[in-house]
């Protein structure tokens, strides 16, 4: 079991927090920007040993650190990663410097507070992925709302206040149910908040039912799954570019991560029971999101709805309970982080120049901004899942996994892939080709800084697209173990019918 010999994970998680605290002492905006960039780069470098030293042969949590935090209630500061969380940790550390860079010029007021909020976000997001104690997880999960609320509400667009409060209340309402569920698990699981200990316990079916409902609401809002997605377009459209990138690339992954980390291994019976619903909602999200994307006149809204569609593949893959499906879903989460983040960067680059996000205001950009056009084409093709790009691998695996156990859903979901090609290519055509809008004539092509924000993402697109092996290797052991964990339950679940279960679930909460 790898152990760095020093608190590696804690350093990675809290380095951004230290940066945020240090920023308080600085006065000049430029110094704060460099500090933020430096901090995120240091965090990225610090996280590389995780990738190198990670033992790909075991599903056990690695780089574990554990200290007593609130001993009276057996609450610990416990962190560690397995294959599933490792990828999301690396995704976060990889994207954070890009987030700082893309706000370099576009954020011009209260730079210090903005960079502090971004750094606090990074700590909270990393904390969510590495926490092995439910209370610790919850603290990071909720703490993240505060900086994100400010990022949308202070630095966002015209309708930012509405979007920020909607984002906040939606996600808060979901998480609070998670809080009650977490406490109930503590008592049912033998007075422990340890995430590994809470897995694989034989919770009664009726108990699992209610736990699943509470978990589902929290995670489905975060993903967001249809019909809980309505906060997302508002938040994306109003957030500054950096906010959109954080939201799309990392924040939405927390919902998917929640399903993999909690719902499936802790509540296998209920997960199996709810599978048809989750799959149906996933397919609806895939198709509905794509259709909505088709109809959007605003670039950010288009990408926001494409997110709903792409995240539908994630939940679809998770709930088909096959190795391919779950690995595909995990990969799809990473891919969506890379590709959608990149698309939001591209929109941000345009917006900085023209202050418009309307597709109709553009056209013919391929002639004036060729380099930019190349980037937008690459990311659009990645988004629609062209073979050779990252999304192809993820979506292909998800569909493959789905065909094994749930062919009908797979067929329906395939429709989403076709629609994705329609809306992405149509968008590319309207923005890059055709009649040029004379207002956009004098705009320069990508600057070096902008190139630096998108270039790493291009590399990631093709790396995962052409050689996904190293990424999948990280997942194998953990996903296989997860499949075992979900199978443990299926025996008892088979005997239960929906009507039995509903009745016992209702009885469980009625006063005796």
């Amino acid at each position, binding site marked *: 079991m790898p152990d760095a010999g020093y608190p590696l994970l804690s350093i990675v998680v809290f380095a951004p927090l230290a940066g945020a605290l240090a920023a308080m002492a600085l006065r000049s905006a430029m110094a704060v920007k460099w500090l933020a960039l430096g901090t995120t780069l240091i965090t990225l470098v610090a996280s590389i040993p995780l990738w190198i030293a990670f033992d790909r042969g075991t599903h056990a949590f690695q780089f574990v650190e554990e200290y007593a935090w*609130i001993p009276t209630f057996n609450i610990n500061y416990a962190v560690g990663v397995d294959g599933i969380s490792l990828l999301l940790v690396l995704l976060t550390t990889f994207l954070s410097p890009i987030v700082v860079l893309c706000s370099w010029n576009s954020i011009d007021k209260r730079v210090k*507070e903005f960079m502090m909020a971004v750094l606090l976000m990074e700590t909270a997001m990393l904390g969510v992925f590495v926490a092995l104690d439910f209370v610790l997880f919850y603290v990071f999960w*909720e703490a993240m709302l505060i900086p994100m609320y400010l990022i949308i509400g202070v630095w966002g667009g015209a309708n930012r206040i509405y979007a*920020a409060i909607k984002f906040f209340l939606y996600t808060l309402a979901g998480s609070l149910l998670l809080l*009650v569920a977490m*406490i109930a698990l503590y008592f049912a699981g033998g007075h422990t908040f340890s995430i590994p200990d809470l897995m694989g316990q034989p919770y009664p079916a009726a108990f699992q039912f209610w736990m699943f409902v509470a978990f589902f609401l929290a995670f489905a809002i975060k993903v967001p799954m249809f019909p809980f997605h309505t906060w997302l377009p508002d938040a994306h459209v109003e957030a500054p570019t950096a906010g959109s990138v954080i939201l799309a690339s990392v924040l939405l992954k927390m919902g998917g991560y929640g399903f993999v980390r909690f719902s499936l291994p802790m509540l296998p019976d209920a997960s199996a029971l709810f599978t048809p619903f989750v799959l149906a909602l996933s397919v609806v999200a895939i198709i509905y999101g794509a259709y909505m994307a088709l109809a959007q006149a605003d670039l950010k809204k288009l990408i926001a709805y494409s997110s709903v569609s792409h995240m539908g593949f994630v939940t679809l893959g998770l709930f088909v309970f096959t190795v391919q499906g779950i690995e595909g879903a995990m990969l799809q989460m990473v891919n969506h982080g890379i590709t959608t983040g990149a698309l939001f960067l591209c929109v941000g680059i345009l917006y900085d120049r023209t202050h418009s996000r309307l597709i109709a205001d553009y056209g013919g950009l391929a002639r004036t901004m060729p380099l930019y056009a190349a980037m937008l084409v690459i990311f659009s093709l990645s988004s629609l899942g062209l073979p050779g790009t990252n999304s192809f691998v993820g979506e292909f695996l998800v569909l493959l996994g789905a065909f094994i156990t749930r062919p009908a859903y797979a067929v329906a979901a395939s429709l989403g892939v076709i629609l994705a090609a329609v809306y992405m290519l149509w968008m590319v055509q309207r923005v890059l080709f055709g009649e040029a809008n004379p207002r956009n004539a004098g705009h320069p092509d990508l600057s070096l800084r902008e190139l630096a924000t998108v270039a790493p993402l291009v590399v990631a697109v093709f790396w995962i697209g052409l050689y996904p092996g190293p990424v999948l290797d990280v997942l194998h052991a953990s996903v296989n173990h997860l499949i075992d964990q979900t199978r443990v339950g299926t025996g008892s679940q088979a005997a239960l019918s929906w009507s039995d279960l509903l009745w016992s679930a209702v009885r469980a909460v009625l006063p005796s």
Partner: protein
Amino acid sequence: MNFSWFQLVAIAPEIVLTIGACALFLFDLAIPKHEKDKLGYFAIGILAVAFYGSWKLAAVETEIFSGMFTLDPYATYFKMLVYLAGAITILLSMTYLEIEKIHLGEYYGFILLATAGMMVMVSAGDLIMIYLGLELLSISLYIMAGFKRHESRSVEASAKYLILGSFSSAILLYGISILYGIAGTTNLKGLGAFFAAGAVDNPGLLLSMSFLVVGFGFKVAAVPFHMWTPDVYEGSPTPVTAFMSVAPKAASFAVFLRVFAEALGGVKAHWQPILITLAVATMVLGNVVAIVQTNIKRMLAYSSIAHAGYALIGIIVGGGLGTMSLMLYLMIYALMNLGAFGVVIILRKGGMRGEDIADFTGLAKKNPVAAVIMLIFMFSLAGLPPTAGFVAKFYLFMGAVEAGLVWLAVVGVLLSAVSAYYYLRVVMVMYMREPGRDFDLATSPAASLALIVTTLAVLFIGLYPAPLIDATKAAILQVP
């Protein structure tokens, strides 16, 4: 009754405070008008001496004066809480009183007297003593509420509080007398033994319990006995409001729990449904009505009502976890609410009343430090980690789940989401609106100290609650 010196030692902190208060009234005559601050610091000194005394007595557990007065860690915990609240209130008051031109020495004397009243309450071993302490507290508060005697709102608050308060005290007294009729004693332990001995089938019991609930419900501002709260909170001088919203509330809850757990623990099945109804009504009304407030003092009044609803869960749950969570909640609530009021207080300067939520518009741009402090308190009141407010709510809900009242916890958390809306509105106007004016804050070293202490405490408890939890656990009320 045998008298010993030890009995005087046990009530030494109370004696110190009472003598201190009387001394303050005298000194006031000799201190010139512009040096009244000295009296404030003198009062803090008295509180420090009393704190030291209670600290020394922390491990003592005894009953004196024929069971009238109980000294136990539970009482000491709440005494510490009220010293802290009193001292922070004084720090926040000095500049405010100066600005309002009501800087009179009596103010500090009444804070000490109110504190002494609360100490008698939390240490009472007998219903009569509770009543005595409650009256000492209430009369001091009636006067303090009307301290801005040239302002009609303040006088109205005082009068309203006096009339409704006396009414509720009378009802409480009536409840006590019926209880005496049933059990033949007003001693809490005696009552506890009486009800533990067997099921009591006396219609008078329900009546007396209801009256007790009304009396205590009024003091802690539980719905439907909350009507006085918004008007009194709005009209009183802001530091008095801050004090009223935390210390008397904590002391009343301490007594509430002691009476219902110790004296009426045997008939819990009778009073639990009443309190559950009360808790739900309080959480719903407090949180929902707070949304539409435009005056921040009224908003915090309804928020304080809502928080009383949460705290009631602690009494309903009872037992080790319930008691602990209630004690934890009241301590944390005192810190964060005093802090929030502290920011409201420093906004009051010159022509600026600083009482409308709109008055906070753009504060983040003009004074980022004050804004971030307010932000921390707002998120803490909403119960978000990593602030102390989360810790407070977490254990209450944990108690509810342990007691099998999962639905009550669900109601609580959902209303927490509602509460986030109005707390966030303050954050929103501070951070997301452009300032329309310059802020000239009434900061003073004393007020700054109070704000720094409360802010750090709220963050520290939020991040590392273990020490406070251990201290609370050691002071849990022992019910036979």
